[in-house]
């Protein structure tokens, strides 16, 4: 049946609908710059949204956990082989995405006999000059770059709203605590937007407010901080930093 171009296009379109529907419940991951590096964070019912990929690169994921895991392993393999065979300086998020994972994801998506990856990925990097780079990649291999922060979410409307709101704020001038507070406010607002869009009105287990999210879910967050003493500049948010955020939202 796929010899006919229309049938193939129809099948691809159906796959888009299928993946988008499956992704819909994916909780947002936000990445923003701050005055000493960049911050990536999100709330989720179970840990597994934010990961370290290499010395100066981190990953955020939305979607099926097994698919996020498989792509994370691919990124880790590529990064460590490149770092071993050449140099840590040759491991960049652009190379990992543009020449590595994006073409493979696109091919996978268009081979309609294979199961598609149900994922959206956010790759962030603080480059050797201390400049943050933000990349967002879709399940079909399409990727975009941003200078001032970005977000991924299961729901495209939420994702687009977060993207617009992030651009409105001077995150790069904020301290880490400020950036975390402001980004959390955006996360909170986006939850309301998400609930408003819930046309079916069906009940789900998603927290309505940020306080509920703190109580019921996990806050996962990390920074890539220029002032790190280690060559691997990724570090998870400390308990103190999370507690300060928690008390600021009450």
């Amino acid at each position, binding site marked *: 049946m796929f010899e006919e171009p229309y049938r193939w296009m129809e099948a691809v379109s159906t796959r888009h609908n299928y993946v988008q529907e499956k992704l819909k419940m994916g909780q947002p991951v936000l990445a923003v710059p701050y005055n000493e590096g960049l911050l990536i964070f999100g709330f989720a019912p179970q840990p597994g949204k934010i990961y370290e990929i290499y010395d100066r690169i981190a990953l955020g994921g939305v979607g099926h956990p097994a698919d996020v895991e498989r792509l994370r392993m691919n990124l*880790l393999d590529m990064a460590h082989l490149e770092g*071993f*065979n050449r140099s840590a300086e040759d491991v960049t998020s652009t190379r990992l995405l543009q020449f590595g994972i994006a073409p493979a994801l696109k091919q996978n998506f268009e081979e309609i006999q294979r199961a598609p990856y149900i994922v959206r990925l956010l790759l962030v990097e603080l480059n050797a000059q201390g400049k943050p780079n933000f990349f967002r990649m879709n399940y079909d291999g399409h990727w975009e770059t941003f200078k001032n922060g970005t977000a991924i979410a299961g729901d495209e409307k939420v994702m687009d709203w977060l993207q617009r709101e992030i651009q409105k704020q001077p995150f790069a001038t904020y301290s880490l605590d400020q950036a975390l507070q402001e980004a959390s406010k955006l996360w909170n607002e986006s939850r309301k937007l998400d609930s408003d869009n819930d046309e079916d009105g069906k009940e789900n287990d998603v927290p309505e407010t940020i306080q509920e999210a703190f109580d019921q879910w996990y806050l996962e967050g990390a920074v890539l901080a220029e002032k790190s003493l280690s060559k691997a500049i990724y570090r998870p948010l400390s308990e103190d930093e999370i507690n300060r955020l928690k008390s600021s939202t009450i």
Partner: protein
Amino acid sequence: MMGNIEDTKAGGDFFDLLDRSGYDLQDFLDKLPVNGKSTVPQGTTVLAFHYEDGVIVAGDRRIMAGSNMMFERCEKIIPIDHYSLMAVAGVPAIAFEISRILSQYFEYYRRTQVRPMSLEGKIRTFSKLLKENLTASTSGLTRVSPIFSTYDVETGKPSIYYYDMLGAEFQVLSFTATGAGAGHIRDVLERENQWGPKPLAQRCEKDAAIIAMKLLHVAAQLDNEEKKSLADVQIYPILASVTENGYKFWSEDQLTRLEAMSREGN
């Protein structure tokens, strides 16, 4: 990209990843002449001992080929991860390769498994690499004598391991040294530890650093392969520590001051 469920592994094994990429250290070692006379450059003296905050690691910077000095700025103390240092005497080509593999291995494991490798795991991985170097090292061509110093964040304890060329590991509770000048250094360290003002493990960082500098002077003065010290031409030994804050190297300025203090006999 997709594998079968039967092929599923826990992951985190960098050797497996290297194998899949076609890298083969063993193949390279197997091709080396087994009975060749060793004129391969060799690193000379490195040492490590416990002090009150952790472990001091020091080494001279020379590479010798027989009685010829091939290089005088070699860095024989190599960071493996944020809490581990490897100090090597022996053939730098293999030592550097081992350190490169280990460094990627520990980080790859930590990132894939989202937790650091256990101390025992690190020790065994190091041992495995040395065992793979077995054929070549018994011929004398690529012999490596490493010291592995690390700080275990879980237990809050520093530790030092010395390896023989067959890959057996020995935990050192006080001090160790390896390389051409090691015999002289061990004698002095034993004296310092037994009859000095305090046991080495109770010395402060400054005292420990000065002792390390003095020891490398001793090795340079007494060892045939090292002969005169290079302090006159401002090439200082490498000095580092591993503590609960990770590893740290002394800067060139700090070494200049330490060198002066160690010469004064303080």
